[in-house]
């Protein structure tokens, strides 16, 4: 028989995993940006202010996914209802929500970090076009965070739209539904890892090229949009599978 403690254990486990896994690459990404920024100041001491500003803004944008993970884990710790009639469904859903957002913030943070680092490098090379490069950096980072947004959506749906476990159903049925929910969390969590990193790579290369050939701005941006949009499609397949696992069972 399930008690309140079981649901609590699942939620706390989910919260810990969420922010624990999510913080890893958030740190790495911010570190990349800071490193490139510092190196850029060495190469181009005159662009000191601009580089410092870009570095801070880039780091803030790269930490978005980490902040999503923090929000989910706060909600898991403080914002859930501990009614025992939620049953195994709720326990599995809380654990899955933590896994989804935790794993889901790995890729986007890393990608946004790479994009920000390349932007700092480009600005050090061409301080005159700093504003255009910074705008491109922000757009690229926002594109790479869209897969983190998918993970966040699935985590919220897992936390708030799963019904309580109905009375008098067999163990087999409970097993299918709860394992299905965990599968949904894993699907979107792992599925955003690749696209997040990939889109970050696209944005980084775009920033780099913009520093080399500033007059090709519109061409580069357009290719970046298209490439990033197509790279995102596997994250969207994961989202579809997660929706199916949550709602179609």
């Amino acid at each position, binding site marked *: 028989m399930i008690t309140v403690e079981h649901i609590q254990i699942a939620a706390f486990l989910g919260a810990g995993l969420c922010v624990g896994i999510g913080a890893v690459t958030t740190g790495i990404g911010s570190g990349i940006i800071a490193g490139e920024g510092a190196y850029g100041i060495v190469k181009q001491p005159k662009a000191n202010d601009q580089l410092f500003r870009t570095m801070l803004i880039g780091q803030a944008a790269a930490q978005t996914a980490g902040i999503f993970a923090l929000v989910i884990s706060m909600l898991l710790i403080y914002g859930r209802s501990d009614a025992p009639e939620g049953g195994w469904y709720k326990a599995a859903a809380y654990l899955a929500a933590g896994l989804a957002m935790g794993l889901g913030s790995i890729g986007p943070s890393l990608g946004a970090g790479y994009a920000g680092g390349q932007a700092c490098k480009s600005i050090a090379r061409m301080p005159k076009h700093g504003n255009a490069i910074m705008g491109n950096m922000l757009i690229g980072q926002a594109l790479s965070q869209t897969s983190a947004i998918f993970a966040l959506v699935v985590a919220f749906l897992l936390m708030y739209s799963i019904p309580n476990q109905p009375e008098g159903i067999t*163990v087999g049925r409970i097993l299918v539904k709860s394992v299905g929910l965990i599968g949904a969390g894993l*699907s979107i969590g792992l599925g955003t890892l690749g696209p997040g990193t990939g889109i970050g790579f696209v944005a*980084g290369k775009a920033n780099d090229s913009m520093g080399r050939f500033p007059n090709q701005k519109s061409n580069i941006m357009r290719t970046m949009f298209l490439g990033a949009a197509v790279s995102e*499609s596997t994250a969207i397949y994961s989202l579809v*599978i997660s929706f199916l696992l949550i709602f179609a069972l």
Partner: protein
Amino acid sequence: MELTLAHGIVKAAALLGAGLCMGMGALGPGVGEGFVAGKACEGIARSPENASLITRTMLVGQAVSESTGIYSLVIALLLIFSS
């Protein structure tokens, strides 16, 4: 019809497998397509007169490298609906 325990275990394993299949399967194509698009950005900056050719090559290359992602999608759908 209610599930027996044995059937439940099989179906649960299939669902977990579906989630893992799509999750892991999306990893490779995502990074790969990103690599293609990044290099295409670089190429277009270098020789803008070939822009439409590069864009087309990029899209075809991404479509091919996405095929393993589509295989994962098919397998995941099969696991969800046929077990």
